[in-house]
């Protein structure tokens, strides 16, 4: 537990010691604001909710989360510091979870800093803050899903650009797996039950109900299981690819 916290703290120091943290937070805030006001028609909808704001989160995360996750392991492999980390008396589990949690908490900080839009909607109208809270929670969970995918992929390479692109593509597949763009491809050669399973893996489907304020146990467990599976895969990759 102490080791996990030590790793988590070290990672967070790493973010704020470099421009990464500030650039990420700035861009996240600018984009999430601009998208809700211009593309989401925040004012024109004349509704006291944050639907226009949360709708774009999956798309923001699609690009921004891999930008954070790409360095998690690839950089350690590149600089050789992974040798240092693994030969400290820590377990692979602690290292994987500590790094993931740090990155996830970091996106959580960026998400919390969007609070002015919540103040705005409360100033302009009388929204259901329970729904907004639920949507924030759902958005955070979804960011964790993207982050777990990105962390695992980052461990497979020492090249951050490769990690970024592969993570982006994988996240994109997960995001849209309920849509014809992805399903048509699988429908050609896989039996229907498998295609249905793939369809049920879609981030968008699970997020859209949370976004509407419906916190369903199935959606929650979907993200929790997704994160666990990818982190487990992350541990396997770290163990197997230390040498390469």
């Amino acid at each position, binding site marked *: 537990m*102490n*080791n996990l*916290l*030590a*790793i988590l*703290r*070290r990672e967070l*120091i*790493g973010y704020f*010691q*470099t421009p990464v943290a500030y650039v990420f937070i700035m861009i996240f805030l600018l984009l999430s604001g601009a998208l809700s006001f211009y593309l989401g028609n925040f004012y024109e909808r004349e509704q006291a909710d944050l639907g226009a704001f949360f709708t774009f989160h999956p798309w923001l995360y699609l690009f921004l989360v891999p930008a954070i996750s790409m360095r998690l392991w690839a950089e350690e492999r590149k*600089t*050789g*510091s992974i*040798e*240092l980390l*693994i*030969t*400290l*008396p*820590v*377990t692979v589990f602690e290292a994987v979870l500590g790094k993931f949690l740090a990155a996830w908490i970091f996106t959580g900080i960026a998400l919390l800093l969007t609070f002015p839009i919540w103040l705005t909607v409360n100033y302009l109208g009388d929204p259901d803050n329970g729904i907004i809270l639920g949507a924030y929670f759902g958005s955070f969970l979804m960011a964790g899903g993207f982050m777990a995918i990105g962390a695992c992929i980052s461990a497979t390479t020492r090249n951050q650009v490769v990690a970024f692109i592969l993570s982006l593509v994988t996240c994109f597949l997960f995001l849209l797996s309920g849509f014809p763009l992805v399903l048509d491809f699988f429908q050609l050669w896989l039996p229907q039950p498998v295609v249905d399973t793939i369809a049920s893996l879609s981030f968008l489907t699970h997020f859209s109900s949370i976004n509407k304020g419906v916190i369903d146990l199935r959606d929650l467990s979907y993200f929790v299981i997704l994160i666990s599976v990818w982190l487990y895969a992350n541990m396997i990759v770290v163990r197997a690819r*230390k*040498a390469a």
Partner: protein
Amino acid sequence: MSGSVVVENLVKIYGDLHAVDDLSFEVGPGEVLGFLGPNGAGKSTTMKIITGFLPPTSGRVSVCGHPVATEPQEAKKCLGYLPEGAPAYSEMTPWQFLNFVADIRRPENRRERLDWVIGQLGLEPVLHRPVDTLSKGYRRRVGLAQAMLHDPRVLIMDEPTDGLDPNQKRQVRDFINEMAHDKTIIISTHILEEVEAICTRAIIVSEGKILVDESPEELRRRSRYCNAVTIQAQLKEPVRAALGELEDVAVVEPERNQGLTLIPRRGCMLEDAVRDVLLRHNLKEVPLHIQAGRLDDVFHSLTHNIHE
């Protein structure tokens, strides 16, 4: 045995490359083992296996009595490791980095240990500058500080002086010598003067196999230059001829300024015979230099066949 490293029949195979091929040795407290060998001989791989970074294909390693395979955490706790190139988290300052290591190593009297390594390695001037802005020498010292922080009984250092200038090399060597009396230390190097400067024992590996395992003195005695006599003076032709005809001289090598080096037949001493010859030619004052043997010569003759 507590505080020791035991390696038994270690094998590491990558694809069809035998990086480490049935290596066995044992090192105890007070020993400084120099791990020598050409590049790619398996030195780093062996160290990575001892420190628990890589799993071996077969064979066993134990550190301070803890098998690395089954009790990795216990084994890692009693060793300090300086990986090749002394990697560190480049965006952190040495202070942050050492505190991170201390968070995990949790040494007793943490504050004193931190002060001690910082003082010993002279890190105060750079303590709050990011590691990636530091010179190579300082980075190496940060790596050493990290490895020493918890006062480990076993220290493993992969090329600790590689890329340092002569003064920095000396500092690192002095530091290792100070540590040496009660610790088990393994260093890898391909700098032979380093073996003479700090090691009590040397293992030469090539292609994953141990070629020799003995003290630096014994190693030097293998050299054909061991007990060779060098004369740094202008000698006239009759003297040169007389020296060359001595029974125990195997080879005569010319030196600069018309001096020469007489290499003896194996096991023979030349000094007295050479002095006799010089006396007969009224050259009493000419200084003789008796060589102890050259490690680079031994190293070359042991490992070059494989590379040709």
